[in-house]
C-alpha cells in the first residue's frame, strides 16, 4: 500500500517576516507570517478576526510541529491556539501562487 500524505520536507525562516516551506511533493511556498496570524484558524479568531493595525508588528516566537498533520505557531502577541493544518497551508500557498 503506498500512501503519499502531505508532509513538510524543509521549513526555514527566510527573513524577519517570511516563512519558507518545502512540501513533500517538492513544491516550495513562502508565507508572510502576518498573513498567517490574520488567517489564524482557531475558534476564537474565527469568531472575531484580529484588527489589521495590530498585525503589522506581529511575529512568531516559535513554530512547532503538531503530530503529522499541522503546525502550531506561538506569536509574540501572546496568541498560540491556532493549529495550521498542512492542508490549509498548502492550499494557501497554491492560492497565493495563482494570484501571483
Amino acid at each position, binding site marked *: 500500500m503506498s500512501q503519499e500524505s502531505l508532509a513538510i520536507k524543509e*521549513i526555514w*525562516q527566510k527573513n*524577519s517576516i517570511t516563512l519558507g516551506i518545502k512540501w513533500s511533493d517538492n513544491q516550495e511556498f513562502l508565507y508572510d507570517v502576518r498573513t498567517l496570524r490574520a488567517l489564524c484558524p482557531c475558534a476564537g479568531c474565527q469568531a472575531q478576526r484580529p484588527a489589521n493595525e495590530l498585525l503589522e508588528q506581529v511575529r512568531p516566537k516559535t*513554530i512547532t510541529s503538531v*503530530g*503529522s498533520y499541522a503546525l502550531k505557531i506561538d506569536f509574540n502577541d501572546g496568541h498560540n491556539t491556532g493549529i495550521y493544518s498542512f492542508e490549509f497551508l498548502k492550499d494557501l500557498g497554491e492560492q497565493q501562487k495563482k494570484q501571483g
Partner: protein
Amino acid sequence: MVDMEQPLATDTNTQPIKNKIHSIIAVASGKGGVGKSTVSVLLAHFLKKRGYRVGILDADIYGPSLALMTKASPPSQEGNTIFPGKSSDISVISVGMFADPNKAQVLRGPMAANLLGQLYRQVAWGELDFLIIDYPPGTGDIQLSLSQLLTVNAALLVTTPQDLALLDVRKAISMFKTLNVPLAGIVENMSYFTCSNCQEKHYLLGQGGGAKLAKEFGLCELGSLPANQDLTRAGDKGLFGDDSYFSPQLLEAIEKVGVSFLGELAKIRPAPNLSSFTLNWRS
C-alpha cells in the same frame, strides 16, 4: 529586502525523559467493543516473540482494560518519572493501574488529554521497537489529542463483520487520513465461532465486513480472528503470554495477523520528511 536565510529547523526530541521509540502504532476502530485491546495485546506478544522490544499504552481513560488483560506488575514512580508495569517483558501503562477499578474517571476532554500526555511523557519507556497505543473508541477529543501529542507511524484498524460496525470504522479511517497517519490495514475480529461439537464455523455477526472495508479503502485485510472462549478467558485472567492456552488454529490466525502487519508496515516508507521539529524565529 535582503534575504537572511536562516538554518533549517531540525528534528527535536521534545520528551524530557530520554526514550527512544522507533515505531508508534495506533490500534483503533472508532467502534467500541470490537476487541481493540485484545488485538493490541495479541500484537504485542507476537512482536515480543519475534524479538522486538514492545510497550503498550492504554489510551482508554474512561474504560481502561489493559491492567486486567495483561496482569502487568504495578508501575513504580521516582519523582516525576513513572516506570511502566511489566507483563512477559512487555511494558504496560494504563490508567487502570492507578485508579480504583470500580470508580469512574469523570473527566472532561482537556483533563483526560492532560492525563494521557502525562502517561506518555512521564513514563520511562526506555528504548522500544514498538509502542502500541490502544485507542479508545470514537473520533473525538482524545483521538485528536493523541494525534497531536504523538507522531503515529501507522494505524491498525479493528472491526467486527457487521455493517453497523463498519459505519464507525469508516469514520476512524477518515480521521487518520485527515491527520496524515498511514494505515497498516484492517483486522476483522469475532469473525466466526467454531462449534466444538461439529467443528463447523458459524458466522454470528455476518461475513466479509473486514474484506469489504479493505476493498473500499484500498487497504490490506491483515487477517481475521474468531470469537473464542480461550481468548475471552485469556483477557479476563491475563493469560495472553502463554500460548499453551490457545488452539493451534487460533495461534495460526494470530500469527497471520502479525505477519501481515509487519509486511504492510515495511511498505509504509519513512519519507524523507521532518517528523517533529521546533523552529525558533529570529527577530
